[in-house]
Each structure stands twice: as C-alpha cells, then as structure tokens.
C-alpha cells in the first residue's frame, strides 16, 4: 500500500512539474519599479486634494510602483492590463495611491534596451487625460523583462521618468526610476516541484532494501 502511494505521489508530482514546464510562463505577473521622488508638493505643486496623503511626500523619498496583473509581459508590445492593480507607495511618508482603473504597459525595443511606458488612469478628477494619471517612461536592458533588480535608465528626452498627476493636473509628483523587478512568476512553483522530487528521490534511496517497485528498479 505504501509503495503504491509513493508511486502515485511521484507520478502526481512529476505531472505537476511537467505541466509547469510546458504551461505559459505566468498566469499572474507582478512588476515592481522603484525610484526616488524629485518633485513633491513642497516644491509648489498641489496641494493634493483628492488624495491628501500625497502632501506628506518629500523630495528624496524612496517610492515603489507595484503592478499586479493577470497574464504575463515577456515580449515587446502594448498590454491593456485593466483589471490589474497598480499601487504607488512612499513608505516614508505613509502615502499611497491605488485608485487606478485602466492600466496600460508598453514595451518597445530600442537598440540594446527595451523602452517601458506605463500609464495608469486615476478614478478621481475629471478624467485620465485631463491631468489624472500616473505615467512612467524608462529603459531597461533587452532581455531583462523577467528579471529582478534590473537597473533602469532614462530614455533620452523623456523626463521625468515618473509623473503622478492628480486633481486635474494641479498636483504633480515627479521622480526618477532606479530599478525594475519582474521575477519569473513560474520559477517558484518549479523550484518547489524540484525540491519535492529531490526529497522523494532521497526517500526512495533510503528504502532500497524494501520490497517494492523502487527497490526492484534499483
């Protein structure tokens, strides 16, 4: 009975791992972009009305922008990620903005780099294109779309890399971008599968002397 269970377990694990290998790379993706605030309400923009927490942001604060979405972004193109979540966060100021509805991400090849453009439309204000959006433009080395801690660089002529416009454009938070992270989403399950198979293999070796299918093969 124990041998049968082990066999079934191994077969199931092998099936899951194989499925993980041949399945699309991700069913859910996450992109995290980090940087530093270069313009805040203390510079004369605002004050923020629709989201007063933004008034606590200071120049020099570290910020992150996290994008969670269904599917994957692994090649150039324009992706409508509406339905995903986009969060701008400044932990030092306890400030955050997450009231985005439509989200779009574009990846454009540009020589040895990929130019990344992100637009998140806020639900507040008089409409996205009337000064209520988060906009980001930066470049990362080609081939690093599914990598962690990738250094991000300025696209020549496009400054600032982060522009968070609120209150119909009255509030304008700006920042630079330093790093991009999008770990291969499928890597964790595959790693777990590998570890699981390793453990099973070790258990099997320890029981070589026992009668059963493992012992017979050994």
């Amino acid at each position, binding site marked *: 009975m124990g041998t049968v269970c082990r066999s079934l377990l191994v077969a199931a694990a092998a099936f899951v791992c194989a499925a993980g290998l041949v399945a699309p790379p991700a069913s859910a993706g996450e992109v995290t972009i980090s940087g530093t605030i270069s313009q805040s309400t203390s510079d004369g923009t605002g004050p923020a009305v629709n989201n007063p927490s933004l008034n606590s942001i200071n120049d020099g604060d570290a910020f992150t922008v996290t994008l969670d979405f269904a599917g994957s972004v692994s090649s150039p193109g*324009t992706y409508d990620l509406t339905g995903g979540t986009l969060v701008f966060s400044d932990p030092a100021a306890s400030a955050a903005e997450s009231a985005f509805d439509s989200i*779009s991400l*574009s990846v*454009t090849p*540009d020589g040895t780099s990929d130019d990344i*453009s*992100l*637009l998140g439309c806020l639900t507040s204000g*008089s*409409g*996205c*294109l*009337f*000064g209520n*959006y988060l*906009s*980001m*433009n930066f470049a990362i080395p080609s081939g690093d779309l599914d990598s962690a801690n990738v250094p991000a660089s300025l*696209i*020549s*002529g*496009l*400054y*600032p890399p982060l*522009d968070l*416009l609120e209150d119909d*454009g009255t509030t304008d938070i700006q920042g630079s971008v330093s790093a991009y992270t999008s770990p291969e989403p499928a890597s964790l399950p595959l790693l777990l599968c590998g570890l699981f198979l390793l453990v099973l293999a070790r258990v099997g070796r320890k029981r070589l002397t026992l009668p059963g299918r493992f012992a017979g093969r050994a």
Partner: protein
Amino acid sequence: MHKFTLAAVFCAVLLCCAPAFAIDGQVLINQSTVMAAGGFPYKITQPGSYKLSGNLVVPANTNGIVIEANGVTLDLNGFAVSGPLSCTGLGESISCSNDPEPNPTYGIVTTNLDFATVKNGTVSGFSGGLNIEGIAEDIFATSNLDYGISVSDGVMERCAANFNRDTGLAIAASAALQNTANFNGEYGLRAATSSFSSNVFLANGNDSPGAQILLTASVSGNNNSCNGSAC
C-alpha cells in the same frame, strides 16, 4: 418600461456630453498616453484643446502627431517632439543622419485641409518639423531635413528655425511675422503668395544675401533683415 426609458435618456445625455467635455477641457499628451493609445503617430481626431505634459520621443519612419480635425489647438507647453534624425554642421555644411526618404516624416502635421494652431515648443529630427495649415506661434525647429516649419493658409509668428538641412521657414498663402531663421542649409525662408514682416535671416545657405530668402509668386515684405541688411 418607464425605468428603461429613463435609463436610455440618461445614456443618450451621457453620450452627447462626452465630446463637449473634451472640447472644454485640455487633453494632456505625453509619451505614456501616446503609447497607451497605440503608439505613434498620435492622431488627434476631435476638435479641442490639447497640451503636452512631457516630451515626445518618436521612433523612426513615423510621424509624431497627426491632426485630423478642424479647430484643434495644440500647446506644446515648452516641451519637444523629437524624431530620430540628427544633424550636424551649419549652413551649407549641414549633414543629417537617419534620412527617412523616400517616405518623409513630420513632427506635427495637419491632413485633409484641417486648420490648427500649434504653439510654444520644439520640433526636431524629422523630414519636416512642423507642417500645418493654420497658425504656428513660438515654435522652435531644428535639425530637420527638408524644412523646419511650413505653414499654409495661416500665420507664422515668433518662430525660429535654425540648423535645418534645407530650408528654415516655408510659407504659402500665409503671413510670417517676427520670425528668425539662422544657419539653415539652403534658405532661411521660402515664400509663395504671402507676406512677411519684421523677420530676421542670418547665415543661411552659402551665407550670400540671395540665400536668405527665396520668393516665388506674389510675395510682399517689409522691415525684414537678411545678414544685417534690409531685404
């Protein structure tokens, strides 16, 4: 049934009001909004007021902004629309890389005889920087191939065109007022059936007086300066 009618009326009102709102407000354009809309060229198809909220960097072999509606005002807001061409040198010695011929590109262009106002910014790196029917105000054009700014059936005012490979400014059936064109490869100004006043032209083409302006058809001018002399 009554609820359905009310809902239908409400929807109809919403649909009617949407374009009006776009006309009253000022639509912001930047690289992200362009990319989210499908990339370049960015097409303006509705009348109204538009304003850049950041520079636009346009890839090769495409126009930057195409205006396909009458009654558009586009404020570049001090920002630049930049194409991939880059030019070096001055006057006759200007040379440019990334020539898109035989398919010319434009930084900003109107189509179908649409009339627009474009103002307050920079266009560079295209076959033609700005090519419109309408009004061009406070535009700086540099490093373009065929011309910096071309205006038909309108007015060109307080614009500057420097270091363009061929012509700095071009007008047809228009008026040019208080513009400057310096160090362009062939001519400072080409004008046809137009008037031009209080403009300054310096060191264009081979630096000769004749290279500063090229006038065809019926053109009148006064108070203009070519290499420091009246012309």
